[in-house]
């Protein structure tokens, strides 16, 4: 047992406190009054008016001049000193505002409607919205198609050469890649689905399932999309594109 180990340790504690306190102390580099003004505005819970600042600052400080200088110091930086409604405050530069928002992705299961729509597009492509609705027996919402479009799994292919010239949908290469399909023909057929119990066994004998194809080029029944003399095109899709 050392003789006065408690005192020694206490001296160590004391030295540590002094050290840690000194570590934070820095030699003032700028005008003391400017430093104080900066700290006051930084720590303030709400914007401060010049009058209050004058009260807080040492007597005789030229607060207006100091404010002007501080505002100039922070011009073009990530934070700015701004004067709003007669009060002063620091705020992050407006152009950086959107960087302060961190967008994180959280995995979520696709909705039943989206899954059905995607499956129908995969098997029946090129397929129009009306045809998808016909197969599903329910309307397809724009949102559902948007989600699939955003995921990059489906695309607008062209326009069907029928009255109204509806847009046709098809799957993308990304779709194949995501679902680990070499080609679209890898999708299981009627008998496979039946064997897997995914098709109702009570289905009528004449129930037909298309053999999926995913032609890169437009089929004979399709026209290209960029068809400027079709006013609906602009109404219908340009707005949607902007949302994405």
């Amino acid at each position, binding site marked *: 047992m050392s003789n006065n180990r*408690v005192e020694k340790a206490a001296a160590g504690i004391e030295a540590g406190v002094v050290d840690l306190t000194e570590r934070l102390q820095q030699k003032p580099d700028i005008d003391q009054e400017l430093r104080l003004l900066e700290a006051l505005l*930084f720590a303030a*819970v709400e914007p401060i008016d010049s009058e209050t600042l004058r009260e807080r600052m040492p007597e005789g400080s030229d607060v207006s001049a100091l404010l002007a200088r501080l505002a100039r110091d922070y011009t073009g930086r990530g934070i700015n000193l701004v004067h709003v409604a007669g009060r002063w405050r620091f705020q992050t530069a407006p152009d950086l505002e959107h960087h*302060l*928002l961190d967008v*994180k992705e959280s995995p979520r299961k696709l909705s039943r409607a989206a*899954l059905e729509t995607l499956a129908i597009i995969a098997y029946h492509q090129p397929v129009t919205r009306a045809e998808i609705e016909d197969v599903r027996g329910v309307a397809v919402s724009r949102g559902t198609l948007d989600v699939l479009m955003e995921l990059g799994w489906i695309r607008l292919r062209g326009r069907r050469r029928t009255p109204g010239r509806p847009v046709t949908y098809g799957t993308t290469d990304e779709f194949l890649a995501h679902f680990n399909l070499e080609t679209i023909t890898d999708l299981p057929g009627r008998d496979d689905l039946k064997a897997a119990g*995914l098709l109702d066994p009570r289905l*009528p004998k004449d129930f037909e399932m298309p053999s999926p194809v995913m032609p890169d080029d437009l089929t004979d029944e399709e026209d290209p999309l960029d068809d400027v003399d079709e006013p609906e095109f602009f109404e219908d899709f340009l707005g949607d594109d902007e949302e994405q």
Partner: protein
Amino acid sequence: MSEDFEEDVKFEAADDAADVGQGLILDISGYEGPLHLLLELARQQKVDIARISILELSEQYLSFIKSAQDLRIELAADYLVMAAWLAYIKSRLILPRDEDETVMPEADELAAHLAFRLQRLEAMRRAAEGIMRLPKIGQQVFVRGNPEGLRSRTTPLWQANLFDILQAYGTSRSKAAIRNHKVPKPLVMSLEEARTRLRRALKSVSVDSSDWTALESLLPITEELPEDIPKTSIKASSLVAGLELAKLGEIEIRQTGTFTPIFVRGTEQGARKQESEVS
């Protein structure tokens, strides 16, 4: 150990007690337990805590406990346990050393243990003071008063596997193919039926159909109908049918006041029409 000594004890309280000096302080609520009391007594020896005499300390503690007992101050059990233990150490320490060599080291060890515990507690007290003297947020240094905050927003990352798709496809197509398109007939009496029945009923109630008859009595009863059509529907459809026939001039219809029975009677035109239809 009693919790009575736990809370609301400040350093100041102990320091004040120490300032009172050599006299034994009997306000033992100022100490959290025997160890804290011993530490206080040791501090009063005014020597380095590493060099305190356990023997002397034991004596002080024992006399403290004794005076407390004399003053009938209730002492927690652990104070008395400590007193007994110190009395034992004291007796061993003052025994002549050369009497029994094997016993003495044990007493020394016990005394050293107590000394160590006192030193350790003292060190922790100093350390606590040291921590509290560090520059603290909100005391010596200040963080931003009204930070904008860094926000996070999550966007969904949609997921699906092939099985999901196949299952959705199978279910969707099965449902669509098997779906029965027969729309169930609504349980109401059609206007057409009501008209036919009203005409027939009017004809059957009287040969001279110019007598006023209550519409109510002309209504078919539910049992007469093939389906379970609710009465309200029969009544409503029949009234509308009656109004329609009145408009065509086949019947007359009247009601004397709100909620009073509605009466109908056939007109000549109606009778003619019926006759022509029959012939």
